[in-house]
């Protein structure tokens, strides 16, 4: 599903990723871990098409990211969705409108949108907050809304960059459980985190990044 072959990325000639190679299978849940500045976010951005690799090949599904055109990126972002540490939600909109946004972009009918949004809000146990403004929710709730928005279009891959970074341990565990639940439905999940407690007692694959290299 995701293949990196000898990928290099530099910022101002300083190497951030150095010859990274790995493969993530379809339906796999994996963690990328490492200290701050190890290159976790850069790696996720490369998969999401926000950054371009300076050397090497990246393949995500049918997308050859080393040669991807600007016009193809919207299609990639329907295939791969992203959950950010800072949620990136529209604070001026309600929970419903935030989760409905990707479906509206796809041009789905309001009736369909309503059904799908309510379904996904039930999964994250926030159906009762459907009409609340996002800014009135707690951090944990906002992250759940961000996850709901990421899964509402049934993407093949979900990327999460420090999704528990701003949350307390209890909320963090809830979020990880949510990703595990999503993964059981066949969605490939890749979570970047520096918090080892999130994957310590699990059997999921962990890619350790250090100084821009993988040391698993």
């Amino acid at each position, binding site marked *: 599903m995701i293949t990196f072959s000898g990928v290099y990325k530099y910022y101002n000639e300083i190497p951030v990723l150095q010859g990274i190679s790995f493969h993530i299978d379809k339906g796999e849940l994996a963690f990328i871990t490492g200290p701050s500045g190890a290159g976790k976010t850069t790696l996720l951005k490369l998969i999401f*098409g*926000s*950054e*371009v690799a300076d050397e090497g090949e990246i393949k995500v599904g049918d997308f050859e990211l080393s040669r991807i055109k*600007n*016009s193809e*990126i*919207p*299609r*990639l*972002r*329907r295939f791969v*969705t*992203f959950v950010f540490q800072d949620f*990136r*939600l*529209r604070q001026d909109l309600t929970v419903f409108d935030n989760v409905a*946004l*990707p479906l*509206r*972009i*796809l041009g789905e009918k309001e009736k369909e949108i309503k059904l799908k949004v309510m379904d996904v809000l039930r999964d994250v146990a926030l159906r009762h907050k459907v009409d609340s403004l996002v800014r009135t929710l707690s951090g944990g709730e906002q992250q759940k809304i961000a996850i709901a*928005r990421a899964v509402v279009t049934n993407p093949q891959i979900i990327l999460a960059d420090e999704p528990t970074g701003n949350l307390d341990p209890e909320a963090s565990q809830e979020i990880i459980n949510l990703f595990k639940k999503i993964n059981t439905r066949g969605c490939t999940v890749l979570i970047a985190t520096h918090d080892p407690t999130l994957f310590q007692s699990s059997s999921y694959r962990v890619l350790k990044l250090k100084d821009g290299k993988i040391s698993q």
Partner: protein
Amino acid sequence: MKRHIQSAIKDIWNNRWSTFLSVLTVAVCFFIITGISILLYNLEIFTKKLTTKAAVVIFLKDSITEEQTNYLMDQIKKMGVFSKLQYISKDMALKEMKDIMEPSLVELIGYNPLYNTIEAYLKDEALTTVEDTVNKIKSLQFVDDVYYPANIITGLKIIRVTLWNFGIGIFILLTVSVLFIVYSTIRSFYWKKTEEIEILKLLGATPSYIRLPFLIEGAIIGLIGSMFSKLFIFIVFLLLQTRHIYEFIPVLTQIVIPLEIFYMLPIFGILSGVVSSFLSVGKIKYQ
């Protein structure tokens, strides 16, 4: 599309004062553009009327017979540049002269000093080649001389060209101003929505999805601006009528207002709004 229109209307409402100011400025520009268009349209009609009224006068040789006159008129007709030919014999000309001048003065001369003439009225499209036509006629048999009001025609040509250049210059200037006003307004809307646009990009929105509300906003500003300018024009004409200004400036009664302008104005408004919004949003980059 419904969602995009709703989003555009919401944006316009949220920025109502800046939108109102740009609409007003666009309306003033369109008002001047329309005024200039009406002026040029009427100038065109006026110059055509004047130039077609100015006939080429062909003086014939004294010895010419009726048959030869008919032959000459046929030849001139065949040139295809005149809309009307009128033969005036020297006797008819003298009679006309007596109507204008004191008959005793004409009698004093003792003979008819006038010529048999043909008055030839030029077609509109032949105005530009009048000098060539005159030279050709001069070379014809039985023609003594040819007179045409060269100064009037050349003067009118110069005035017409100057006013057209001036009009086109103002037209371009104001059109660019309209584009710039809408461009700046939409640009400010765009900047206010930067965060929202970034989220849309992350969620896989296509460039056209992101652009469309802005294009609609530009179109609305252009359309309302053009409607306001129509309203201004209507008010000006109402004022001219109610204040009896026509009595002081009679030429105003001759002004023709082409209705096409009123159909074209909203289309022009929408087009300029869409174009400037498109330029304002620019390329949507994802990387």
